[in-house]
């Protein structure tokens, strides 16, 4: 297969070694999200061994499912070199629809949610056709979603549909539900984006759009599909969030915009170039969910400082990634 390897003395692998180095560094980098998650877990185990239990995980990872879903949603737009600044308020909007219309008038609720996915698809089309910066368009949309959420639910309240509560109260044997859900989300999206033949086209649109166009693919379609998938996972995230909190508030998802971006990057994704990892993104979301409050509570860090401590963890992990990437060169 590689005659140049057999031709030279053992111990020196020219030609292939720079590439081998790149592959090693990539490997290391793809392990980094898992590594940071296990570090956080070890810290928690050390601070509070009782937290490492079925019940402990169910509690600590309570909010991990909606965060993971929002992170996956963000990952799809990032795969196409775009950014969605409206995902947080969109999750809040979906939450308000779920806690009101979806419970009282399910048909209208379902129509509203499907319609909102359609709006996401249209935004994708608009961004592609008019060549607009996605940051600006989605920042504008974030106010639209927020306003709609307030119109639907002017003050906190509403109630999650019973079937949704039942799903999220599911207690599988041995494995806590949030972990099971995370595995499922990661597996499904990994298969869809990384293994299917159309997933290749979606990622390719972020890697080299011109090449894709020359091969006869529609970039309008890839953009629409990516944005619609973001909308779909945003809807799932909002519904999961309401299933856990049982009632809604128009501002409930506001923090998710930056959490989801951080989760994608923490999970090994890059802002441009179509380099994303669904498994990494889910792990990143779990890390953020754990580092957000359980770890810091166990460390007796007062709530006032928790946000800053959370940021520090993010910076440390990203710095480690940069160091590894530099070795790649």
């Amino acid at each position, binding site marked *: 297969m590689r005659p140049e390897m057999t031709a030279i003395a053992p111990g020196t692998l020219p030609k292939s070694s*720079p590439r081998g180095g*790149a592959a090693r560094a990539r490997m290391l980098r793809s392990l980094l999200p898992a590594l940071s998650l296990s570090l956080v877990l070890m810290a928690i185990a050390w601070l509070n061994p009782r937290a490492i239990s079925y019940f402990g995980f169910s509690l600590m990872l309570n909010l991990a499912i909606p965060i993971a879903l929002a992170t996956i949603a963000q990952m799809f737009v990032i795969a196409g070199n775009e950014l969605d600044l409206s995902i947080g308020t969109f999750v809040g909007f979906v939450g308000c629809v779920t806690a009101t219309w979806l419970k009282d008038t399910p048909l209208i609720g379902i129509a509203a949610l499907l319609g909102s996915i359609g709006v996401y698809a249209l935004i994708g089309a608009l961004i592609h056709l008019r060549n607009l910066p996605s940051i600006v368009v989605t920042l504008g949309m974030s106010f639209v979603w927020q306003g709609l959420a307030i119109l639907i639910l002017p003050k906190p309240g509403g109630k999650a549909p019973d079937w949704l509560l039942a799903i999220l109260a599911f207690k599988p044997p041995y494995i806590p539900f949030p972990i099971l859900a995370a595995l499922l989300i990661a597996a499904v999206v990994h298969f869809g984006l990384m293994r299917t*033949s159309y997933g290749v*086209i979606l990622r390719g649109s972020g*890697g080299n759009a011109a*090449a894709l166009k*020359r*091969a006869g693919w529609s970039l309008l379609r890839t953009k629409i599909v990516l944005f619609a998938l973001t909308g779909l996972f945003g809807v799932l995230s909002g519904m999961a969030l309401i299933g856990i909190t049982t009632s809604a508030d128009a501002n409930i998802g506001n923090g998710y915009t930056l959490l989801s971006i951080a989760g994608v990057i923490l999970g090994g994704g890059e802002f441009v170039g179509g380099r994303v990892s669904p498994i990494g993104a889910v792990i990143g979301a779990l890390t953020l969910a754990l580092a957000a409050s359980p770890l810091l509570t166990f460390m007796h860090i007062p709530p006032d400082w928790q946000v800053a401590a959370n940021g520090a963890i993010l910076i440390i992990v990203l710095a480690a990634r940069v160091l590894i990437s530099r070795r790649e060169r």
Partner: protein
Amino acid sequence: MLQAIADIVRLDGAEKHFGAVRALSGVDFHVGAGECVGLVGHNGAGKSTLMHMVAGTLRPDGGHIAVRGNQEASYSVARALELGIRCVFQELSLCPNLSVAENTRINHPSLTGFGWRRKAADLIQAKLDEIFPDHGISATDIAGDLSIGKRQMVEVARAFTLTREPLHLVILDEPTSSLDAHTAGQLLAFVRRFVAAGGSCILISHVLGEVLQNADRIVVMRDGKVVAADAATAFDRDKLVAAMGGAEGHQRAVAETRKTQAGPLKVRARPARQQDGKELVARAGDIIGLAGLAGHGQTDLLLAIFAAASRAKAGIEVTAPVALVAGDRQADGIFAQWSIAQNIGIRSLHRLRNGLLISPQREAELAEFWKKKIGIRTPDMNNNIFSLSGGNQQKALFARALGSDAQIVLMDDPMRGVDIGTKLEVYDLLREEAAKGRTFLWYTTETEELDNCDHVYVFKNGRIVANLRRDELTEEKIIQSSFGDAA
């Protein structure tokens, strides 16, 4: 009529304008079945525009296009692929984030369903094995990790893979620009086999020898028109150059022995993997060639020397400021958002400074000086760098290096895809600068360019295996050293 059916593709009176610029003015062009057509001309002569039309990526503003005798009213990329016409574009068009197999999938809509990954991997692997035996590329390699030469090999092999769509005509736009002599030979031999088996091919190359030896018929373009078209046997090198125009008045580098005495030492470098005592030595006024098969440590050594100039490094001695002319222009050379003047000035900022700020006036002066000196063809140096053709972009990168205070200029195969007129101009400039005492270290994949060097180091497996003076330099010798035992 019979003639029309034997044609794979025929364009009549094709026209294309970009704003005020007339890129093509009424071009007639055809390719027959089982024919390899060579297409030559300077950068900007309209070759690429014409090929984009044949490939369906550009729509002609006027004229007709017919495929196998049928007029195509709404011709597009998808239609071209359906009809078996494919193109390997000059700018690399792989997705760097995808694996080799996944990149293959992009060109084959029918590679779907269960097991497509296996099928795509087998397809590209088999074709690579067929065209470039010993290529050392795996279908799971990520395209972005591969060297520029290997990326080009993947791209060429991908164009010849076969699934549902037929394959009648492949356009190869500068297919060998990043390949060394050995792999370029493998590719051209494959093209001959493909044509002998009834396929058709359009070969665009600035290496005239390649075209003369491999094309059945040669079409010469100049200023958006076809100026000559005849059987390849009717041309020789001089006739081609004359037909292309613009390169008159230049003399090819003759092996004059202009160097008499050795200047002061500028660079002494030992490759990291060197086990014997061989090392690279360059003195003031030297033009040193780095040869051998692509990716055998030439670029690595240049980068090591570049790094050693700012931070001391074991085994490398550098005594003067260094500048690098990148070979992978788009990735390593150009600041895409900047103007031509800014791209030239970036290496000389401390000289352009006025207090804390960059003086726009001095920047403009520097740019204007080099515009005249190196002949950058643009109405305004404040235009974006991408307004230039590939060859002129490369000139701007040379101007960046030569306009700086660097006494040592490292060149990492900078002439990829540059037309012969530009090349000759740059060669003259290099000799002129070398005579003034500058030192050039020049890695090139084109053996012809080594004629400009005072002596040549041949690399194999990251080591220097031979040091040839200009008078003992022959292509055979280089190939012999490249393949000889490294012991």
